[in-house]
C-alpha cells in the first residue's frame, strides 16, 4: 500500500459523497470547456469564414456595435481600390433572413464582380452568371438541413430564389450561408447602394507595415474602421456580451467545483477526527497528514477533471447540434483549452483541500483520540 492507495481507500469509504463531488467537479470542468469553448469558437469560426474568402482586411462603419447593423456605401469601393497595396475590394451585405418553415438563414449578397467568386468551392451546380437575378448558391450543410438541392427554390425575405449551386466550404458559417446577388439583397432589405462591410485583399498580406498603412489611409477617409479578419469581432457588442456571459458562467462553474472539493474534504476531516488523531499517535507528521488529505483533494479533482473533459466534449457536440448555434458556430474545444481547464481544476482542487487539511492538523491528537 502507498499514499495513493490509502487516499483512494478513504474516498471509497464514502462512495456517494465522493461520486457526487467528482460529478460536481466534472460538471464544472465540462461547463467551463463548453462555455469557454463556445466564446472562443465564435471568434475562430468568423475568422475561418473570412480566411476562406481570401479576405485580409474588413472595413466597417465606425461606432456601430451590432454585427450587421452598420452599412458602408458602395461608392467607396473604387476609391479604396486605388490605395497602393490594395489588390481587390468587394462589398458584402449580410443579414439573417427568414426562410421556409419559419426558419432563418444567414443570407449574403455578393456583387457580381466581387473577388470572392474566384474561391467558391462547388459541391454541385454552378456559379451564377453576373447578370442573373433571384438565384442563390446555398451552403451544403444548410441545403441538407432544409432538404434543398440544385434546381429547387428557397424563400428569402418572402421572395423565391432558384438554387443554381451548392457550395462546399470548410468553415461552418460558410457551409450554412446562402449567397445571392448583392442587388437582390439590397432591394429586399431596403439598403440600395449599401453593404455591411468591405472586404479587402492585399498585395502582400504578410507585410504588416503595408497592411497598417492601408488601414490608416482608409480610416483617414472618415467614419470607417478597419480590422484584420481575426479582429473583426473585437468591437462587436453582441459577441462581446456572449463572450463575457459565457466566460463568467464558466468561471463560476469552475469555482463551484472547487468549493465542492473543499466542502467534501472539510466534512471528511470533521468526521475523521479520531483517525487523524491515530495517525498522529503512530508518528505521522502534520505535513504527512496534510499531504494525505491534499492527495485526496487531488484525486477528487483529477478524476472529476477527466470525467469533465468527456462531458465538455459531449456538451460542445450538443451545442453544435442545436441548429440556432450549430449553423454558425462549430463548438470545438481545443486541446490547450481542455488541458488548461483540467489543470486549473486540479490545481484549484489541491488549493481548496489545503484549508481542510490545515484544520485537521490543528486538532489536538489527544482530543481526537478521546473522541468516541
Amino acid at each position, binding site marked *: *500500500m*502507498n*499514499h495513493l492507495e*490509502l487516499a483512494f*481507500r*478513504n474516498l*471509497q*469509504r464514502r462512495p456517494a459523497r465522493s461520486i457526487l463531488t467528482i460529478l460536481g467537479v466534472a460538471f464544472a470542468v465540462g461547463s467551463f470547456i463548453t462555455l469557454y469553448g463556445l466564446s472562443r469558437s465564435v471568434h475562430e469560426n468568423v475568422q475561418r469564414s473570412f480566411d476562406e474568402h481570401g479576405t485580409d482586411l474588413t472595413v466597417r462603419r465606425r461606432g456601430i456595435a451590432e454585427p450587421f447593423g452598420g452599412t458602408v456605401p458602395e461608392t467607396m469601393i473604387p476609391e479604396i481600390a486605388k490605395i497602393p497595396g490594395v489588390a481587390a475590394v468587394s462589398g458584402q451585405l449580410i443579414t439573417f433572413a427568414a426562410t421556409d418553415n419559419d426558419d432563418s438563414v444567414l443570407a449574403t449578397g455578393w456583387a457580381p464582380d466581387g473577388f470572392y467568386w474566384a474561391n467558391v468551392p462547388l459541391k454541385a451546380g454552378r456559379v451564377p452568371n453576373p447578370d442573373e437575378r433571384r438565384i442563390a448558391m446555398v451552403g451544403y450543410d444548410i441545403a441538407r438541413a432544409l432538404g434543398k438541392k440544385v434546381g429547387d427554390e428557397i424563400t428569402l425575405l418572402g421572395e423565391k430564389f432558384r438554387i443554381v449551386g451548392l457550395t462546399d466550404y470548410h468553415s461552418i458559417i460558410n457551409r450554412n450561408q446562402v449567397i445571392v446577388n448583392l442587388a437582390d439583397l439590397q432591394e429586399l432589405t431596403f439598403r440600395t447602394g449599401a453593404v455591411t462591410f468591405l472586404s479587402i485583399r492585399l498585395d502582400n498580406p504578410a507585410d504588416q507595415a503595408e497592411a497598417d498603412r492601408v488601414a490608416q489611409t482608409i480610416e483617414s477617409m472618415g467614419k470607417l474602421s478597419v480590422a484584420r479578419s481575426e479582429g473583426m469581432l473585437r468591437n462587436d457588442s453582441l459577441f462581446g456580451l456572449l463572450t463575457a456571459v459565457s466566460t463568467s458562467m464558466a468561471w463560476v462553474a469552475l469555482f463551484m467545483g472547487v468549493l465542492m472539493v473543499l466542502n467534501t474534504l472539510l466534512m471528511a476531516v470533521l468526521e475523521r477526527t*479520531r*483517525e487523524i488523531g*491515530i*495517525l*498522529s*499517535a*503512530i*508518528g*505521522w*507528521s*502534520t505535513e*504527512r497528514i496534510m499531504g494525505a488529505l491534499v492527495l485526496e483533494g487531488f484525486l477528487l479533482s483529477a478524476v472529476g477533471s477527466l470525467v469533465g473533459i468527456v462531458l465538455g466534449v459531449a456538451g460542445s457536440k450538443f451545442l453544435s447540434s442545436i441548429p440556432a448555434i450549430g449553423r454558425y458556430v462549430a463548438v470545438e474545444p481545443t486541446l490547450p483549452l481542455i488541458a488548461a481547464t483540467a489543470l486549473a481544476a486540479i490545481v484549484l482542487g489541491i488549493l481548496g483541500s489545503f484549508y481542510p487539511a490545515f484544520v485537521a492538523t490543528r486538532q489536538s*491528537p*489527544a482530543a481526537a*483520540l478521546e473522541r468516541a
Partner: protein
Amino acid sequence: MAPKPLIVLDHVGHSFDDGRIVALRDVNLSFGEGESVAVVGASGSGKTTLILVMCGIRIPTTGVLLWKGDPVTTLRQWTDLRRSEIGIVFQEFNLFPTLTASENVEVAMFGSGVGSSERRRRAEEALKTVGLADRATHLPQELSGGERQRVAIARSIINNPALILADEPTGNLDSVNASAILDLLFDLQRARGATLVMVSHAPDQVVRCSRQINMKDGQVFDQRSMPAREEVL
C-alpha cells in the same frame, strides 16, 4: 545493576482548562531499558494522561521529559519518537476500518524510509508474530476483539520501538483473550528488550511486571519493584 534510563519524567505536570483541572502533579519517574512497569490507580488518577505525556500526545505544562538523557521539547521530536521509538497500544484498538489488518500495520511505517514492498513484507511478518498470518487481508470488522488488539500490537511493534506504552490493552477483552494478549505483550517485550509501560486495573496483570507505580490524584503515590515472575508463579 539498575537498567539504563530510557525515559525520565522530571517534575512533570499536566493540567487542562487553564490549570483548573490538574491531571498530573510534579511526577518524577524513570523507566529503564527492558523494564516492564505497571501503572495502577483509581479512575481519574492520571494513568492515561501519564501514558499520553510519555509519548508526546499530551505536552506537559510543567517539567521536562528526557529521552535517553536528552530533553524532548518539540512536537517534531515527539513525532519522530512515536514513529521510530515508541509504540502505543490503546484499549479501543484504534484501527482504520477501511484498511486490512496488514495495511493497518503498514500505515505505521509510512515516513520511516521503508519501501512499499518491504513495508508489506514486514507487516506480514509482524502479523505472523502475533499469530494472525492467516487474517492479514481481513478488515477490522471481520476480526474478533482479541484479533483486533493483536493487530494493534503488531502495529505498535512494527518499527522495533524501545518503548511500548499500553493503555489498558485488555480492557475490552474477555479473560481468555486478555490472558493471551498479555502473554503476547510480555513475550514481545522480553524478546525485543523493549520497555513496557502498561496501565492496568487487574492484579494478575500487574504482578507480571517488574515494577508497579501507584497513582492517586495525578501524583505518584507509591512505587515498588515486583518479584520476578517465576517467583510469583
